[in-house]
């Protein structure tokens, strides 16, 4: 991706957003300790250092999801991506990271690039990831071993690919929700939000 390019096309936008999800999911998994920190390696992206997993299985899984997601982003058929953290033992949903994706479908017809520099977009993405990192200030400690799952909400008429299956929404009952920052490539807009189990006090 050349940063000298001034405009942004649908394809570029899909790629940028998919890249954001790849880094975003990795940092959530690292921050929340879903995988041991030793299995992560540090890379520099968006002018800050981020953690990427080195676990082969997880890597494959994520590349799989992200490449599928890129396709859907390109077709503008995806509505939401949700990362659900569940307790391994009780199967209770503890945290739910939700990314709402708004697609500007008119971009599919006209292939003219939009005016927004990659640098501005990356700045916005950076502040979203920063905020994800900062959420440790109020999120409860995950005391037990947890697993995670990715849910993607798409348009109804989409054919489910082989590797995907339909799933329930996995909502947390009695949750506290915090809206995080959003960013837009002017074609795709991503709103982020985290929901977690309400504290039993107060």
């Amino acid at each position: 991706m050349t940063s000298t390019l001034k405009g942004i096309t649908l394809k570029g936008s899909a790629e940028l957003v998919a890249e954001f999800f790849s880094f975003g999911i990795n940092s959530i998994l690292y921050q929340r300790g879903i995988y041991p920190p030793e299995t992560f390696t540090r890379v520099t992206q968006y002018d800050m250092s981020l953690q990427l997993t080195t676990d082969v299985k997880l890597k494959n899984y994520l590349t799989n999801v992200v490449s599928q997601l890129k396709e859907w982003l390109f077709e503008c058929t995806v509505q939401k991506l949700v990362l659900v953290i569940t307790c391994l033992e009780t199967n209770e949903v503890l945290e739910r990271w939700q990314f709402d994706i708004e697609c500007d479908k008119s971009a599919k017809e006209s292939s003219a690039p939009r005016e927004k520099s990659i640098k501005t977009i990356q700045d916005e993405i950076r502040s979203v990831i920063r905020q994800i990192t900062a959420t440790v200030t109020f999120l409860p400690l995950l005391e037990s071993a947890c697993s995670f799952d990715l849910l993607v909400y798409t348009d109804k008429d989409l054919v489910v690919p082989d590797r995907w299956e339909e799933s329930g929404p996995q909502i947390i009952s009695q949750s506290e929700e915090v809206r995080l920052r959003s960013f837009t490539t002017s074609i795709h807009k991503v709103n982020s939000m985290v929901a977690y189990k309400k504290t039993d006090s107060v």
Partner: protein
Amino acid sequence: MAEGGDADWELSKENIQPLRRGRAISALNQALSQQQDGPSSAINQQKQSFESELRIYEGDDPLDVWDRYIKWTEQTFPQGGKESNLAMLLERAVTRFTEEQKYHNDPRYVDLWIKFAENCPEPLDTYRYMQAKAIGVTQTSFYIAWSEEYEKQGNFRQADMIYQEGLKNCAEPQDKLLHFHKALQARVSRQVMTSMVMDDSDDEAKHAERVSLADLKHRGKKKAIAPVNRVGAAVKSNSQGLQSQGALASNNAANSRFVVFDENKIHSDEPAEPKVESWMAPPPARAKENEQKPEKWCDVKMPQRSRFGHTLTSLPPSKPTFQPFVEESDQPPTMTPCKINPAVNTVLSARKPCKEETPLKRLQEHHQQAEAGKVQEQSMYCKELLLSGATEFCFEELRAERYRQKIAQDSGTRGQMDQASAGTAN
């Protein structure tokens, strides 16, 4: 807040203490916004109502008020600090119920103790004290907190032992205890594995490791010059230098003059059972004899013995050998105007460190006094009520509180009577 953009919590994330159970975001945002305007009356009002509730509560579960009060404090003062009074509240709360057997294994009470211990300088002492007093001995959370403290200090053996102790005492919920125990074992074994792998990988490097205090072969014929490269061949073979880590372990007995104390070996000889000391006599909070104040190290001179035998204690500070550059336009600093008459010597000075007193020690003293039953003072007023909370109350406040309660009760009963009469009229 609508966009979630520049939320308060992100701007002051460094000043928010993370809580184990997380924070309610609404309370957090409220607390942070109020913090900018200074302490608000709403917070003070709520605090006051908790305080008075502590005093006039007459139900059979006084711990509940304390529990709610402390949780509220945690959420309302995200940065902790002195004005939150949290440390004092915790101390008062745990002290208040040490004699109440019914609370000893109440999860709320045990939680308070754990929070109290985490505020103490020596949490382990507090946990031992709890064990001796049989507080929380059937609660899993107690063993988890205790073991985690040991683990934090790197004592995995003890950490493991604590879990076994918990299992022996049938702490509830048991599956949680087992689960945490397993997680600890997994962590320890993984650490051992990785350290073994590391050892294997730097086997090569170990040979070339620098040896300190070793004799070096010199080079040069006229002048002996110590070699720049101080490893390998440069070291005389019969050296008795200090080698670090792994190399030492293999040949320490034969080669070294020092007997190295190995903590782990000693431990394995000891009986596995942790000793339970009796806490009848409170142990000194710290070993006071060996205390040394932290001080500046950079300009301190070792007292040196001069040629004449007496010690030179302090050398005068040497003047710098260079002339500091002063800009021509620079004015000599004007004296800050001093309002205080220089003749008067009542200037503020740093408070002398007072007698060291840890919360745990205070607690033990309190307990001892109560046990001995010889409270020397007898107050002829309800001192307990005035001082029982985090802040002090005065008589009038108490009286007003009672009055309000009575009024509320009266109006309540009157209302009921009204209803009753209305009922009969129908």
